[in-house]
């Protein structure tokens, strides 16, 4: 049973690592949000699942699973809210040739 917990925890830490690297390396806000939104949710899910396995089938284990499900539901919602707010306040997305999207209508009606 502990082996499962160790493996899941290592996988969770790996996804946290990728999220952190994505947060630091990507060129602009949207791609950073793209990286961290997904990998953090998965990292939290895996590591909390591993800890729930370690806690065994007790009241605490079920509560840890509840936290994992809660994070699984709310983290994408928070990511969406942040992205919507950034897009509405006209944060310029990164373009390869550096030309702003402003020339074309950013939000096609």
């Amino acid at each position, binding site marked *: 049973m*502990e082996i499962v917990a*160790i493996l899941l*925890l290592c996988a*969770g*830490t790996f996804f*946290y*690592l990728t*999220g*952190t690297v994505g*947060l*630091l390396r990507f060129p602009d*806000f949207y791609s*950073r*949000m793209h990286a*961290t939104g997904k990998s*953090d*949710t998965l*990292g*939290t899910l895996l*590591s*909390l699942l591993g*800890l729930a396995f*370690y*806690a065994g089938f007790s*009241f*605490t284990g079920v*509560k*840890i699973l*509840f*936290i994992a499900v*809660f*994070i699984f539901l*709310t*983290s994408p*919602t*928070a*990511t969406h*809210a*942040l992205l*919507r*707010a*950034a897009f*509405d*306040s*006209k*944060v310029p997305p990164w373009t390869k040739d550096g030309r702003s999207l402003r020339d074309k209508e950013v939000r096609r009606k």
Partner: protein
Amino acid sequence: MERFFLTVSILLGLFVFLCLYRVVFGPGIFNRLVGASVIGTKTLTILVLIGFVYGRIDMFVDISLVYALLNFIVTIAVAKYFQRKGAM
């Protein structure tokens, strides 16, 4: 086993410091928000890990549950606030 949890939480603490760079030097307000929300989810796992290391797991699971709720509410509220203010 506790030693393994301790090393994982120290590693996650290192990741939190890496994300802190984005919070401090993020070009705009929204990059700082991303850093803060990422640090929030990381401290959630660190809390549960520390709970196992200290042995008093019931208390720490409740703390991390409340922390998850708060982190979500804060991100939504600040995003809603900056949507209208239009800070770059």
